[in-house]
């Protein structure tokens, strides 16, 4: 009677629980706790065209109910991802979303093109007769526009709408994969940013990426992080994230994927009522490696207890 499934940009999800980029590796890290098939989907660690070693120094720092991180997009690059990860991803029946980063428009575009090409190949191979059932390894792209814009002196692409527009437009042109644009909470005007994505043909938006925070090591009289500032996530920022999701959902008709500090089924309901078509779970995976399965069960239990048979009944109700 209860259906948790949802459809975003033509892709159908078993449930609205998607694991957030950078907190879920390439999916297999949590498979000792539950089958990935239980999830609505997951986002890969942020990929860039070329491999990146990530940031030196301290990468994590805990704050009251929050987490600062400065991983610096350590990743093997898209080519390596395609070579090494996609085969095993084809075995998994859940929605796989590749999170795409970049420091220049060219890097984003070339990255997206390679993913597009991989997806096309894969589709062709799959339509050929195959003895074992297989699934696509890349169902969607999530475009991370919170990356520092190398050409513009490190200022994020995702802050000014105009700057973000150039990225979204360029990437949209080179891929037919369903495109989610992931917004930064630092965006000057989140509603305007959301509308821009809709105008530029994005199929959905997701938000929020991490806030920006700072921690000083007072004994060493230095910032804890090499780049001084770091990304902040976790329950501490949930009320801030919820507001931004609400603002974005009011501004556009394309689906909004909400996230930021979600740790309980009630939090998922809250984001849904604010307008989210699905949610992402990030930091909470670290706290509870069974997050995926427990939240799914918790969500189902909540829906039963509150006689909500489809989340559409309460979506955006607020």
């Amino acid at each position, binding site marked *: 009677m209860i259906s948790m499934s949802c459809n975003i940009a033509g892709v159908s999800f078993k449930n609205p629980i998607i694991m957030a980029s950078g907190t879920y590796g390439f999916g297999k890290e949590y498979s000792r706790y539950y089958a990935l098939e239980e999830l609505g989907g997951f986002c890969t*660690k942020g990929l860039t065209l070329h491999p990146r070693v990530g940031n030196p120094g301290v990468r994590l720092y805990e704050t009251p*109910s929050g987490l600062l*991180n400065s991983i610096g997009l350590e990743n093997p690059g898209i080519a390596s991802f395609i070579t090494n990860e996609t085969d095993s991803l084809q075995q998994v029946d859940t929605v796989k979303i590749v999170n795409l980063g970049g420091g220049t428009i060219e890097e984003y575009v070339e990255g997206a093109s390679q993913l597009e090409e991989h997806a096309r190949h894969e589709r062709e191979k799959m339509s050929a007769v195959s003895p074992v059932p297989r699934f696509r390894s890349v169902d969607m792209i999530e475009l991370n526009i919170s990356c520092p814009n190398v050409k513009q002196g490190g200022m994020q692409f995702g802050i000014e709408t105009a700057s973000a527009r150039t990225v979204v437009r360029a990437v949209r042109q080179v891929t037919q994969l369903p495109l989610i644009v992931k917004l930064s909470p630092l965006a000057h005007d989140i509603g305007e940013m959301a509308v821009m994505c809709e105008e530029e043909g994005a199929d959905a938006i997701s938000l929020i990426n991490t806030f920006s925070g700072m921690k000083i090591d007072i004994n060493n009289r230095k910032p804890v992080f090499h780049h001084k500032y770091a990304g902040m996530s976790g329950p501490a920022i949930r009320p801030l994230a919820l507001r931004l999701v609400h603002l974005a959902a009011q501004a556009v008709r394309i689906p909004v994927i909400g996230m930021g500090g979600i740790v309980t089924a009630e939090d998922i309901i809250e984001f849904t009522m604010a307008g989210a078509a699905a949610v992402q779970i990030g930091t909470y995976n670290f706290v509870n490696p069974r997050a995926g399965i427990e939240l799914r069960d918790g969500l189902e239990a909540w829906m039963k207890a509150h006689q909500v048979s489809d989340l559409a009944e309460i979506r955006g109700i607020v």
Partner: protein
Amino acid sequence: MGTIIENRQLAADMFLCKVSGCYAGDMGQFYMLRGWTDYPLLSRPISIHDVHEDGITFLYRVRGVGTANMSQLRIGDELQLEGPYGKGFPQVNGRVGLVGGGMGTAPLLYAAKQLIRAGTRCEAYLGFQDAPFRVDAFERVLGAEHVHVQQGGSVVDIVDIAGCDHLFVCGPTGMMEALWQQVRGTNAILHVSVEKRMACGVGACLGCSGVRADGGRYKACTDGPVFRAEEVDFDDLYVL
């Protein structure tokens, strides 16, 4: 989720905690512990100190909010633990020297136990700034004559490197590096257990990243926490 059956203060800030149940784990592996629900946010990585049929023990030092919270737990309280995680100390042939400094002695007791069980000869060198703790436990496993204690000063000075084929070390970075200075160039192989801040413990967050001697990167939680000394960049271990 486990139930605490012992949580005893051993020295100024040192506690020994035993959780009932049947737990897996090899020497040098760790668990992510949390003795609380929401706060602090992250669980804490703590090495396996010992494994018994009726439970697993951890030896920990009170540092900040998490370990302080753990020290308040009493018999019957629940503790969440996830693991075992990581690549621990290898089973090796030959004579092994176990070198621990303070809290760094924690993973070495179970190492002693597993080595002895496998018939490997070993000596323990335990250094303490203040009052020693758990020396008796090492003595029970290895025999008193194989446990060497250094109080104050540097434990490195008392290690019979020439008498060892392998050395397992855990302790402050300065101490581990000093030992490495002594060991490098000899025939002994040094295995170090490194410490990095961790969020997930399973290789998903890339937060526990450290620098390899060749400039590459490792994940302390899955590639380690135990590495051969020549694999790691010691300078980077001072960053915590």
